């Protein structure tokens, strides 16, 4: 279930206006134009944000995924990174909000990703409709997984499936960046740190033995 309780929502009309303007500016290759028409565009966090602050998606620029897109993102993210013995599901770690923040960001890399992610989401629905007669987020977990595997397995057989396969790769990468940037994600992948210690003793003996090296710094 998707609860649309995210902060800093804006209207779909406003979103379309922003990105149409941004696309026009991008085609002209002029960052100056972005500045001139900035009345309609979201802003970044600037060159002097308060970096020590604690932030959440939506704090710097409005989130732009609509309810249906957010629901699809949540379903797909949880299919990619489900709850299991390694850790919680992606949605429990706010991965969908991260992706919403990402595709809503006013920076070139993110705007480029937006142009891949939004059509990719639509394509997932199209493929799901064709196979099951309903949107992707309406599928059972098993159906979703099977479709995912079909796309990966047949990814080179048609331009459409290749596009879907590329999208799943890009989307998985975004999910990984979000999921593994959390304490639960750290535990899942085996990162230990970000905590003050009285001393740094180097790798444990068990790790040294596994790799076949000895500590040389005395």
């Amino acid at each position, binding site marked *: 279930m998707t609860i649309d309780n995210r902060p800093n929502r804006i209207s779909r009309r406003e979103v379309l206006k922003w990105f149409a303007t941004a696309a026009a500016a991008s085609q002209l290759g002029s960052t100056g134009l972005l500045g001139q028409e900035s009345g309609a565009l979201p802003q*970044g*966090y600037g*060159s*002097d*944000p*308060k*970096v*020590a602050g604690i*932030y*959440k998606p939506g*704090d*710097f620029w409005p989130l732009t995924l609509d309810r249906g897109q957010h629901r699809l993102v949540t379903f797909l993210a949880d*299919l*990619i*990174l489900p709850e*299991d013995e*390694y*850790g919680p599901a992606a949605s429990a770690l*706010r991965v969908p909000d*991260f992706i919403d*923040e*990402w595709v809503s*960001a006013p*920076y070139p*890399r*993110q705007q480029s990703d937006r142009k891949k992610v939004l059509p990719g989401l639509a394509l997932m629905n199209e493929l799901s409709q064709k196979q099951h007669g309903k949107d992707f987020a309406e599928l059972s977990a098993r159906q979703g*997984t099977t479709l995912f595997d079909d796309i*990966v397995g047949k990814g080179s057989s048609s331009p459409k499936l290749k596009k879907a396969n590329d999208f799943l*790769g890009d989307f*998985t*990468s975004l999910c*990984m*960046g979000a999921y*593994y*940037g*959390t304490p639960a994600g750290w535990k*899942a*992948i*085996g*990162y*230990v*740190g*970000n*905590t*003050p210690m*009285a*001393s*740094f*003793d*180097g*790798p444990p003996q068990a*790790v*040294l033995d596994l*790799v*076949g*090296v*000895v*500590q*040389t*710094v005395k």
Partner: protein
Amino acid sequence: MPTISIDQAKAEYDVIIVGSGAGGGQMAYTLTLAGLKCCMLEAGRSYDPGSETPMFNRPDQAPLGGGSTPDKDMGFWDATVDGGWEVPDEPYTQGSTDKNEQFTWWRARMMGGRTNHWGRISLRNGPYDFKPYSYDGLGFDWPISYDDVAPYYDKVEMLIGVHGTNEGMENTPDSPPGVLLPPPKARIGDLLTQKAGKKVGVPVVSIHRAVLTKRLDADTIPAKLHPGNKWAQDIVAKSMRARAACFWATPCGRGCSIKATYQSTTVHLPPALETGNLDIIADAHVREVMIGANGKATGVLFIDKTTGREERVKGKAVVLAASSGETVRILLNSKSNQFPDGIANGSGKVGKYIMDTVAMGLKGQIPALENLPAHNEDGTGGAHVYSPWWAYEAQRKGKLNFARGYHIEVPNTRRMPGGNSPVPMNYLRGLHGTKLKEEARRYYGSFVSLASRGEMIPNEHCYAEIDPVVKDKWGVPVVRWHWKWTDNELNMVMHAQKTFAEMIEAMGGTVTSKLATSGYDLIRPGGNVKHEVGGARMGDNPADSVCNHRSQTWDVKNLFLCDASSFTSNPDKNPTLTIMALSWRCADYIIEESAKGNI
């Protein structure tokens, strides 16, 4: 960091210092502790590492996981304010549209400048590095030797705190006993790299970085730094006691709120301010050095960015420590009847012979590092080991197709994940669910990235000049850069690639990318390592250098250059430690001359 407005400035200072980074910070520290009244001008805003540093902030607490954007080129938490590859309202231009002839210029607009985010790598130039022309007939000799600078390296290392080991290697100077702090333990990737290095003849040893692996000895060091000056000793001791030892967390590039690493804002400026002899004016964009009828500098003219007004501050001497490019800009823009081509430019060498560090990197995937038990490798928040250049003998025998050397930096393999996928996606393609998590855990920490940092030979095609047309927001003419690599640098990075591939193979690993066949495909663009040096080199002949061995300009006796603009060569050793050592040395000369009434 307390600042004053121009209205509060004294009518005249002993010394005006332009820039608050490594060179300016060291100058202010040394002069004010000797009793000289100084005014420092910083082009950016004030900055407080104590309250502004994002210690422990996680990717899920920052926009886009803390990743880089055009607003923050090195990521959200990077300790760079109002800067990066572009500075708002302060453009620079290129002399060529050829991508191989472009220069990338990193600037910061904040108290402490680039010392807030720097890599903390603190390597001494060796004896060959000060006499490179004598060594191999290329470039130019400095007018000083290692022995001239060594006592200042000692003092700077004791003041800022540098960890490392003495290895007795060629052209890689040892520090005197007791000066270096203990090295941090090697990480697992370090040890495997070291083992592989032995197989291919590349030594891997503890790196020198300005991080306190234990607290500085505030009871004994101040007396060594300031003999006979109890007042200075007490101030420095108090400042040292305010610094904590590293607690082995948080990357240094974010800055350090506990003052465990060197930043001008945590080490140089606090004691300088404590003397009561330092005034700092922030948001002061210096346009030119003012000159008197007697040919001496009288102060500087700057734009107060908070009001947009031109202001002037006077001093008996002027020190430029604004960074090489900015110092060149100020010198060339300081035109007068006496100096129609810019101040201190009688030789015509201002702006000439700019250098950067020669850099490339190669990544390998190492099966021996897969699926290791989870363990903490944060360490000092930067590299723990490196390879000093090792092939002097092979070079002397003519076995290499390039001159000079490079060192190898070995980063942590188990850094904090988040923002981007912690494992390259080509290792995870098509996976999902528990299998994806298992493979992520398998591969995390199994990638070794080796980075080369090498010496560039100065050449006449690399220079900075004033753009004849473009001005910044305040009407100040901007810098136009010219750049060209030579075969020496291109051959060097190809050698590094071959060496790194051998090391990765010796680890049982596989290079993750296709090997380049041209140096241009490997080498990072000019300026990209942020080590731009030169542009106002020191020498022993006024006809072909801008300043003398004391960093004093030949043409204007009370004008000194104390950033890396005075560098005659750019050894593979990172420049910051040498900037500080030369600045301290210059400061001692200013103090002597001031006492004699010559300044």
